[in-house]
């Protein structure tokens, strides 16, 4: 069957419709991500112009700090990207981060070995993700409701563990959190710590999964907006895929919980309230369609940088930190409207 039939006398004119290489990247699907990158560049330019001075604003140190402060958010947003591409949402991740931190802070003083504690931390996230996935896939509950329930459950369990802030004083844990590679000298010193490495690794692995495996492509297929019908009829595993994206998101939340504990060296039951919304914002700013079916996980990386940069600029400007929320709101609004405009244009 692989030989082209040539004996047929009247070969019909071939159906042609080709886009040249460059044109392909100008198609609407790349517009949101182009917007994201443009926003990032614009903000870097603003920063350079206003605070550049003689030492410069754009420097390895800036990116080092951005990644260090937002490593947990990057991991959360990467997991959220999977869920949003399928057209779902996961509201539980912020509460899971808090729960993981508290469990770590409780287990370590009890003498539980550090590696085991970290594994438990990740598995807590995985379990919550699995729970949401099962609710969504097998009980046909809307992702919003299923993950909202999981959010309340996780937040409630936090209060069961402790209603006070618990400091993490474990030496091994402190060593992991404090370890870093240092570069440069004097005031320009910048470093790479464990959180940054983990976050970037998660991003790379997610990229490979989403773009280079059947599972990853199925994630996109499920998000096409027909309830996974097309994917199902193509003989791919739509249901299993939908379950797995929540497991991935939950696992990422578990990892993010550990990174956040590295960052704060404590566990607290009120941590991460609204953190899931920050993650969603970063994903959307990163060019992933909230309606599902399109987006790039690397865009999510850029989205997190934009998010972090807004905070830096606000701080440098000397404004109150709540101005961050205002600006993120504005950027988010612009991006959602942009997505909408593209969707409307495509339909007409």
């Amino acid at each position, binding site marked *: 069957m692989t030989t082209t039939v040539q004996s047929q006398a009247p070969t*019909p004119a*071939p159906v042609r419709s080709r*886009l040249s290489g460059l044109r392909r990247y100008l198609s609407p*699907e790349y517009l949101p991500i182009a917007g994201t990158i443009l926003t990032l560049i614009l903000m870097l330019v603003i920063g350079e112009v206003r605070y550049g001075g003689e030492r410069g604003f754009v420097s390895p140190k800036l990116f080092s700090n951005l990644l260090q402060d937002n490593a947990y958010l990057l991991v959360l947003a990467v997991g959220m990207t999977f869920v949003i591409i399928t057209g779902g949402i996961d509201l539980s991740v912020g509460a899971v981060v808090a729960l993981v931190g508290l469990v770590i802070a409780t287990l370590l003083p009890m003498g539980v070995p550090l590696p085991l504690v970290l594994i438990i931390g990740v598995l807590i996230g995985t379990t919550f993700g699995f729970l949401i996935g099962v609710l969504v896939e097998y009980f046909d509950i809307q992702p919003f409701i299923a993950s909202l329930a999981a959010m309340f459950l996780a937040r409630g369990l936090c209060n069961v563990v402790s209603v006070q802030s618990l400091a993490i004083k474990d030496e091994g844990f402190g060593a992991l959190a404090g370890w870093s590679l240092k570069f440069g000298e004097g005031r320009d010193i910048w470093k790479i710590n464990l959180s940054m490495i983990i976050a970037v690794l998660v991003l790379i692995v997610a990229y490979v999964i989403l773009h*280079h495996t*059947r599972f990853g*492509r199925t994630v996109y297929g499920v998000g096409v907006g027909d309830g996974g019908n*097309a994917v*199902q009829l193509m003989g791919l595993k739509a249901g299993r895929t939908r379950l797995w994206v929540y497991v991935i998101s939950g696992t990422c939340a578990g990892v993010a919980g550990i990174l956040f504990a590295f960052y704060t060296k404590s566990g607290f039951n009120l941590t991460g309230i609204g953190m899931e919304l920050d993650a969603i914002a970063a994903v959307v700013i990163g060019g992933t369609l909230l309606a599902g079916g399109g987006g790039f996980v690397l865009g999510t990386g850029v989205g997190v940088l934009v998010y972090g940069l807004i905070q830096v600029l606000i701080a440098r400007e000397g404004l109150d930190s709540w101005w961050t929320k205002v600006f993120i709101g504005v950027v988010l609004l612009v991006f959602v409207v942009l997505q909408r405009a593209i969707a409307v244009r495509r339909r007409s």
Partner: protein
Amino acid sequence: MTTPDTQAATPVVEMRGITITFPGVKALDGVDLRLFPGEVHSLMGENGAGKSTLIKALTGVYQIDGGTMTVDGVEHRFSGPDEAQNAGISTVYQEVNLCANLSVAENVMLGHEPRTGPFISWRKMRRQAAENLARLHVDIDPASRLSAHSIAVQQLCAIARATVRDAKVLILDEPTSSLQKAEVDELFQVIRELRDAGVAILFVSHFLDQVYEISDRLTILRNGRLVGEHLAAELPRRDLIGLMIGREGAALDAIERGAQQAFAGEREGVTPTIEAVGLGRHGRIEPFDLAVQPGEIVGLAGLLGSGRTEAVRLLCGADRPEEGTLRLGGEDIRISDPLVGLRNGIAFSSEDRKREGIIGDLTVRENIALAVQTVRGVWRPVPRKELDELVDRYITALDIRPANPNQLVKNLSGGNQQKVLLARWLATAPKLLILDEPTRGIDIGAKTDIQKLVAELAADGMSVVFISSEFEEVLRVSHRIDVLRDRRIVESLTNGPDVDQDTILEAIATKEVA
């Protein structure tokens, strides 16, 4: 041509006594189907006869409740489409069931994509996709998005996907409904190539010409039951239709004669039910004159986009005219919206049944009640008893099946949905009934029913405007035919023995636009 010889060849697929029950409905009842290698087998039947259900049983989408299914002599019970595909059964579904947001290559190859370890080999995948598309004479960039291409090309991608694996059985469910004539020819060439390579092909289409052009064998279903299996060459078309609708083809002719006799030409001095004088709307329809007398059926004929729908939307108030006047029973009237139209006895059944017609999640009763209730207003609910009588009357009169007022409309076949819509408008007892493509996409039995009904309504004095893309149908039903082209009415023909499809085509092709 392969000669279908039942004795010599062994069927690659043999389904026996297949039964599938949905809640409250026996969708399939003991149906047999045999598919032979190197043969094109058409599955025939009206909408709701069980064709789609049978296909979905064969492809593992539905689980069978009874009967056996063997592929290559091995009994199978598929629990999902992937299992059927593994057994060598590939399917192209009625509507393009691919992922528009993925690339062409992915849509063709995903599920059997070339991989190194767990990772997709993109380059290899694009090349293989291009090769598969080339076999169908399609030359498109495999890396482009599926959504960037026309529906016809997407359909070809779906077929390319189905033929990637060396399928033993290829199922094509209405593959030609969105294709142009030239594309159909191309597709048929591909089908013949596959058939000659020994693939068993199951073909479903509403177009009888196409069925006879491509098929070797026919299996006919009616109401979820097997009517018979015949060689295409041995079953004349008329008999096939008879088997499909379960009655003699003569019924069709009766309407034709009935309609033309009932309205003997124009009657002088009768006030038209509705009269449009110079009615128009910029960019939609040029000013036109149109009069419909009581008991008259006026057909609007013209190509898609010629302004048929735009014209009637002005009559019923769906769009507001920018110029001209509208007279109802001889008096000037302004119809500002469809509700005003409805209150004045003008009912408009739109062409887009799914989106502008039925409400799938409501029951048959609720769908029928909708227009009546709207006319009465929110504060005067129709009493349940009155409503039930009304609904029962129309279910019986229009032969809506299943005859269950509590059935959700989305579970009805297309023809029955259309009947529900008709019932909705008839329930308002309109003076003028506007039907925009009332028979599109429905089977021949329901079509006949609807045409007959329209003729009867007119005989009782109702005025009807009838729009259809099928000139044959317009000719059969109408007393007078207004021909449209380029958003103008270019000709008004009085139907008679000397008017046929060529007359309409000629009017479209040659009439000077004034």
